[in-house]
């Protein structure tokens, strides 16, 4: 078995082989999801709790659907309105959860590292659904799956990640995953939204879209994360669109068969021109959503297998290695 993780907290701990294992399994779930009857029973009897400390519709629905299609009992806890508001600490929340005996815990939190903290205190498998500006591993995996299906490979591609790099966990997870897979990565954005030190990861950093997009195979646009900004990173949305919004003129510098990706939700007219987003020959934004469900099914399936194996060993008096 080439997947040895107890949690999925980020791309960073994964080996290239583990990433490929997830993608291969996800490919099979894509086929399943396209059938009329989509249900399997691999998570039969297991409890999945989705804890979202930060608003999300898309990711939460995707995880919920993935769990239900695998036969798990899925519960959504909206932490925005819960006891957290009443002052409960994250550790206390974890202890409360332990008492409910969940098997899979999907967590999104506005603070970087909060999901790791929670994972160290609970007895189930934890999936990071995005923590602050740190990581969003399932997004990077679904992006990788989309690229592999469109381009036929996930190595030796030139991938441009454009826009609000500073506030984006999607950018970090993608940077790590694509780097592990030996791709050429370019980060493009205004210097106010470009965090320091990414050059040292081997990424090329550009401030000019036309230069950065030159001969790119994949163009990944990021959402301008207005909710994470305390004002003043860019002069205005119109100047941002003029300089960094993806339109036909800028895209013409990329390879003619380059695909355009966006993690959603899109701000049309801010980071991407509506025409590009809707161009079925270039845009794979809808495919990304479809791959999202499949990738999350694959991740939960693999984690559940490890969880069962661990508990089986524990029953036999063995310790988990």
């Amino acid at each position, binding site marked *: 078995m080439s997947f040895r993780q107890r949690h999925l907290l980020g791309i960073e701990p994964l080996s290239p082989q583990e990433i490929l294992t997830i993608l291969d399994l996800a490919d099979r779930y894509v086929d399943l999801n396209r059938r009329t009857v989509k249900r399997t029973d691999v998570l039969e009897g297991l409890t999945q709790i989705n804890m979202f400390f930060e608003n999300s519709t898309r990711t939460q629905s995707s995880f919920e659907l993935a769990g239900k299609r695998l036969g798990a009992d899925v519960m959504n806890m909206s932490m925005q309105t819960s006891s957290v508001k009443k002052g409960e600490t994250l550790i206390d929340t974890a202890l409360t959860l332990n008492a409910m005996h969940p098997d899979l815990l999907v967590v999104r939190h506005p603070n970087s590292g909060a999901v790791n903290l929670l994972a160290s205190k609970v007895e189930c498998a934890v999936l990071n659904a995005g923590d602050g500006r740190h990581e969003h591993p399932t997004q990077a995996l679904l992006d990788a799956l989309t690229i592999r299906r469109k381009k036929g490979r996930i190595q030796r591609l030139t991938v441009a990640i454009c826009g609000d790099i500073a506030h984006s966990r999607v950018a970090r997870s993608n940077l790590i995953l694509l780097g592990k897979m030996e791709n050429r990565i370019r980060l493009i954005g205004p210097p106010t939204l470009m965090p320091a030190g990414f050059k040292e990861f081997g990424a090329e950093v550009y401030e000019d879209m036309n230069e950065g997009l030159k001969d790119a195979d994949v163009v990944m646009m990021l959402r301008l994360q207005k909710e994470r900004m305390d004002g003043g990173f860019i002069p205005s949305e119109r*100047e941002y669109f003029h300089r960094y919004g993806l339109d036909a003129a800028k895209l013409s510098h990329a390879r003619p068969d380059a695909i355009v990706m966006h993690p959603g939700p899109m701000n049309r007219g801010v980071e991407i021109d509506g025409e590009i987003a809707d161009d079925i020959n270039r845009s794979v934004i809808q495919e990304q959503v479809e791959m999202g469900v499949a990738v999350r099914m694959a991740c939960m399936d693999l984690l559940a297998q490890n969880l069962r194996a661990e508990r089986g060993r524990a029953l036999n008096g063995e310790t988990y290695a």
Partner: protein
Amino acid sequence: MTLHFHNARLICPESGTDRIGSLTVLDGRIIARDAEAPEGAELIDCGGKCLGPGIVDWGVKIGEPGERHKESFRSAGLAAAAGGVTTIIARPDTEASIDTPETLEFVTRRARESSPVRIRHMGALTKGRQGREMTEIGFLQDAGAVAFTDTDHVISDAKVLSRAFTYARSLGALVVSHPQEPALSKGASATSGKFASLRGIPAVSPQAERMGLERDLALVEMTGVRYHADQITSALSLPALERAKANGLNVTAGVSVHHVTLNEYDVGDYRTFFKLTPPLRSEEDRMAVCDALSSGLIDVLCSMHTPQDEESKRLPFEEAAAGAVALETFLPAALRLYHAGVMDLPGLFRAMALNPARRLGLEAGTIAIGAPADLVLFDPDAPFVLDRFTLRSKSKNTPFDGARMEGKVLGTWVGGTCVFGDLNA
């Protein structure tokens, strides 16, 4: 149309020369120096007087939009022409600030229609000059802004400033800052010292300027932005400036003509026409700044022309508005440094024309072949007593009212067209 200026004392800031020669102008550009007059050229006998590049005055306040009763593009342009200023670099501290490309396009069009001399605009660095959010630096640059500044509104939030600097750096934009620690200088209208204490005027130490400069320079080092300090007026600031330049930071500095020709004692009996931003300094500071200007440590000499109407000045000293008009008195005031032996004429024109033009990326400021024929002809020794009511500015708030001055402008040409003087006749 060919013009031939002969029998002129040519002041060349590039070569540093000051000698008799001639200049030939064709279709608005200088095509030859010390050549024979081409056939059919209009001859202008300069009578042995000085002919130099037109002044590029960096930091002129014009009241459009919002305060046209103080100064309009027309009145400022006429005053500039009479003062030998051929390019005005206008400040964005208008009512509404020049902080959007739309406003910039409006003032650019107004200026083109009304002014006999060239006017280029600086844009605001933050919206409304409020120090909170940066302006559309890219769009403003595309619309023709030559630099970005909040003028004397110091951006106190270092985070806002660092982001604006970072963004400006990515566009290669030039940022102009007013070095000042705003909390320390709040409410002050004089430099602290014996004079201010005696008069009981709230005062600020010149350390406030040095503190502002040191902070700015740290952010320049962090971001790599192109930076210009609008006015360095104190000896305390000079070591920091020198260090920044020695360390290779992309930094220049200016000083107003008032701060090199007047000192705190000139305020005398609470004369509000001497109230400036920053306030006039001690004589020691004035001399140190003169030395820095002559050595080139301070690059730019400017007028900081700030028109104020009578109502804004006819108030108790503390409440009166700061600033002085200077477009017309800039050259005679600056010539005080020449007559005092502080600087020679090519050196003065380097600070008043060549350096600002180069820093702002303009082709003016020089009498090199190929340059636009923006020229000033003047007699550096002609004496006169200034009567402020003869000034062409709408506002008459000059500290030189009744002063004995030397240096008269005889003629001004912009792109080969005479905009002041009657030598062409």
